[in-house]
Each structure stands twice: as structure tokens, then as C-alpha cells.
């Protein structure tokens, strides 16, 4: 189960999205998220979904990977859509005690489901097609103005690089510790929720201890490699905004405007 997590995984490739500048991709993703939450009716939602499908196809990443990233959040999707199903107003189509399903409830459930799916797909498209170093590098560059407020932008970016690098390593270690504890007779798969959470303590403590040891060693290894913060550092891969990036941002602006237009024009469809 631990191995299924696709969070922050990068899949090298040479698609259009792979070649785009990481900064442009982050800006696009943020505006896309805004767009998802601006879509108030089915026409604008359809537009958003169409854009998502376009992104997914042009990323050149196998659909299987996207499905994997959706699998992780399927639980959240189901719960939120079921909750929304019962929150509608208007004439009930079906009623049982205080629970009632209405047309507006159904439409809300569909809305929420599509929104979450679009959100996850677009975010996955970013992490699948952008190497973590480029991603954090881009964040560092985009956050540069925050330096005025004495925010340590380089350090934050470095921390993110290391966090992304250690996700698979720590997952693997968690797996190992769990197996080791199971071999010693620990029971993790039965009992109620509180018992199960308690059963995790013997996993978390060794994990914490070893993470601190890893951190100490990593710090030493970084010092050995002459790391002394962001001052005077250069980059092997220099970010470069090309024509494609500007075109994409312009296109996104047009689509975003389209979504807002649809909201106003088809307002009665909500």
C-alpha cells in the first residue's frame, strides 16, 4: 500500500509539458485551481474538464499513473460527494427520515467530484512532468520577492528538495519497520481505530529516531560538498521561459476569461 503513493514522483519524458518552464507550469497550475473554483455551472465545469483532459493527454504520461494518483484520494472523493448528495435544497426525490436527495444535491455531488478529480489530475501533471529540483528552483524564483519580508526563500526551497528526495526513502523504511514489528508479533491490521493508531507508535518511534540520524548524516554530507547556503550558488539547469510558456499563459488567461464568461452567460443553469 505504501508503494502506491505517487506524490511528488517525477517521470522523465519529452512532451510539450515536460519542456515547459517550471515557473510557467506553477503559474498555470495556480490559475487553473482558481479556474476550478470559479466554475459555477455545467458549461464552465465542462470547459474546465476539457482543459484537464487536454493537459493529461499532452503530458505524455501513461494514464495508469494518473489513475494511481486518483486511487489515493478516492476515499475523500466518495465521502465528500456522498455528503454533498444530502445537502441539497428543494423538492426531495427520495427521502428517509431526515435524509433526502434532491436534484440540487445530485448536481452538487457531481460538481465536487469533478472538481477534486480535475484538481488532482492537474497537480499530478505538474509533479509528473517537472523534476523536483526544477520545481523547487522555480518556487525559489517565484518566491524571491518575499525576501523583502526576511523570508528565507532559498532555505525553504532546499528543504522542499530534501523532503521530496526522502519521501520514497522514508516510505521504504516505514515498510521495513512495519514488517520488523510484525515479525516481533505486533498486530497492526485488526482492532478498532484507536487500537490501530496505538499500534502505529512502535513504527513511528524508530522512524523518528532514524530520521534524525539521517538528517545529521545528510547535513554532514552536504557540508562535505561545500554547501553553505544560497549565497554564490549556481545552477546546472537554468530556467528559461520560451515562447511556448508565454503562449500557454496567454491561452490559460483566455480560458479563465471563458469560464468567467460562461458563469455570467449561463447563470441560470446553476
Amino acid at each position, binding site marked *: 500500500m505504501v508503494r502506491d503513493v505517487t506524490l511528488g514522483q517525477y517521470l522523465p519524458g519529452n512532451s510539450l509539458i515536460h519542456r515547459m518552464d517550471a515557473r510557467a507550469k506553477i503559474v498555470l497550475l495556480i490559475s487553473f485551481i482558481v479556474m476550478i473554483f470559479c466554475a459555477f455551472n455545467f458549461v464552465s465545469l465542462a470547459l474546465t474538464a476539457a482543459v484537464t483532459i487536454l493537459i493529461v493527454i499532452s503530458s505524455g504520461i501513461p494514464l495508469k499513473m494518473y489513475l494511481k494518483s486518483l486511487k489515493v484520494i478516492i476515499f475523500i472523493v466518495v465521502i465528500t460527494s456522498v455528503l454533498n448528495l444530502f445537502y441539497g435544497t428543494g423538492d426531495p426525490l427520495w427521502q428517509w427520515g431526515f435524509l433526502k436527495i434532491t436534484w440540487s444535491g445530485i448536481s452538487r455531488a457531481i460538481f465536487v467530484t469533478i472538481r477534486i478529480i480535475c484538481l488532482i489530475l492537474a497537480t499530478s501533471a505538474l509533479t509528473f512532468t517537472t523534476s*523536483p529540483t526544477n520545481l523547487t528552483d522555480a518556487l525559489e524564483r517565484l518566491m524571491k520577492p518575499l525576501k523583502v519580508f526576511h523570508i528565507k526563500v532559498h532555505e525553504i526551497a532546499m528543504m522542499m528538495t530534501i523532503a521530496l528526495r526522502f519521501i520514497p526513502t522514508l516510505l521504504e523504511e516505514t515498510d521495513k519497520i512495519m514488517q520488523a514489528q510484525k515479525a516481533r508479533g505486533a498486530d497492526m491490521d485488526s482492532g478498532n481505530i484507536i487500537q490501530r493508531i496505538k499500534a502505529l507508535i512502535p513504527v513511528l518511534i524508530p522512524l523518528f529516531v532514524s530520521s534524525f540520524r539521517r538528517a545529521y548524516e545528510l547535513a554532514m554530507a552536504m557540508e562535505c560538498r561545500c554547501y553553505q547556503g544560497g549565497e554564490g550558488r549556481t545552477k546546472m539547469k537554468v530556467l528559461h521561459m520560451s515562447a511556448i510558456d508565454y503562449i500557454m499563459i496567454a491561452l490559460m488567461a483566455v480560458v479563465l476569461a471563458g469560464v468567467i464568461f460562461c458563469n455570467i452567460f449561463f447563470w441560470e443553469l446553476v
Partner: protein
Amino acid sequence: MEFITAENVTFYYENDDEQQNSIIKNAIDGVSLEVKKGEFIALLGHNGCGKSTMAKHFNAMLLPQGGSVYVDGIDTKTEGKTFDIRKQVGLVLQNPDNQLVASIVEEDVAFGPENLGIPPKKIRERVDNALKAVDMYEYRKHAPYKLSGGQKQRIAIAGIIAMEPDCIVLDEPTAMLDPKGRDEVLKAIQKLNKENNITIILITHYMDEAVLADRVIVMDKGKILTQGKPREVFSQVHLLKKHRLDVPQATELAYKLKCSGVKIDKMPLTDEECVEMLEGILK
């Protein structure tokens, strides 16, 4: 003065025992040694003999509390020179997982040169060369966590080579690897020493790794026990055994034969030499 010179180095750790009394433990107790440029040295000893502590003195990760260490004529205690020293002497640690910073092989190798402030095009060149030197070029786009231990350790070595140091200190680089991984790493180290003329200080407790070196330095309880060519050192089987140190299996066999009266002129170090010796005796 040689490339690396240690003069009467002492270093101790302060620990608290159960009664909260601080006990001072001498990790290194008056060690003097010299390393020539281009040499391949094996620093040998069992756990707690001070060899890892010594390793950290060569690139100013630790500063001697007594005596001094000079790297290319610079005292490691000189303030503001730490950077220059680390640029010249790279240190590879035991656990490859904890040394890799980035999630893509080539970006990790680039980490060192990036810290040195080298222009992007030059970094690219250095990264490619470093990866080729350890035969990992075709893995440059891979994620480190998907590689084997030996491959990861070679990436860690490449990360140091990309900084173009004159000397690489390896602190038990094979301790966590399987036999195949050990073999890969040792081959890479030997190649770097022969072809790129990089000075190697290999810290190990495997005797058959020490045999590969030009010179072996044996440490015990923070002091140098003996040093010399592998053949000289390992012919002192009695001395090494007294300090609970092993000798290569081939040498041990020959030693036991010698003790039981078989005439042996030349102590074998490797399995091949041992076979040769046995054939000689049997004829």
C-alpha cells in the same frame, strides 16, 4: 611536506556515563601520518579504533584538539580556508542513502559544483565526466531510490568527483553493500586512482579491500599500530592477531601452514597467490 600531513593529532569525545560524570574518551591519540599525491592508502582497524574520526580530520569536518593536519600546506585550523580544503579533499560516507540530496541522479551529482559557484555549462561537463568515471552515465536521469546500493554509492562518489578534488576519503563505503555492490565500488575507486590520478584514502575493516592499496595503515585504540606495503603489514600475522585484527583468508591459511612446519617463502595476499603457493607446495 607531503600532500596531506598529520602531526601528532589528538582528538577526544566527551561522554556522560551513567552517573553523569563526564568521561573523556580519546578517539585519536597522537597520530602522525603522511599521504603522497596519487597514493592509494587503506586505513584499517576495527570499530572504535578512531579511523572514522581520523577521516573527518582530512577535510576539516573535525579539527584536531592537539597537533595539526595540513592539506596541501594549509593548516585545517586556518579560518576561512575550510572551503578550499573541502574542495580538495572529498569525503564519501558509509550510507549512500543519506548522502544524496536531489531526486535525480545528475542533479545530485551537480550539487557539489553548484555550491562551488561554477558556470552552468561547466557543471554539465563535470557531471557527465564524473558519471562516466564511475560508469553510471546511462543512469543519469534515474531516481536514486530505484538504484542498488552499489550504484547509489557510485553516485555519491561521482558527486564528489564532480568537484574535482585531488583526494577522496572514503569512510567504509562498502560496509552496507552486498558483495556485488562492493565489487563495483572498489573497481570504481581503483579506476579513479589509476586513470584520474586521484589520491585515495580508503577506510575499511575488510582485509581483502586493504590488499588493493599501495600502503596500509593499521590503527588500534587511536594509535597507529603498523604501516607499510600490504605484504609487509599482513606478514605480521602475529601482531595483528594479538590486536584482534584479521588478515586476508589466503594469508591466514599460509600462516597456519607455516606454524605447522610447512616451508613458505612468500606470504600470499590474494586467492590467486594462495592457489599458486599451494600448487608449489604440492609439487
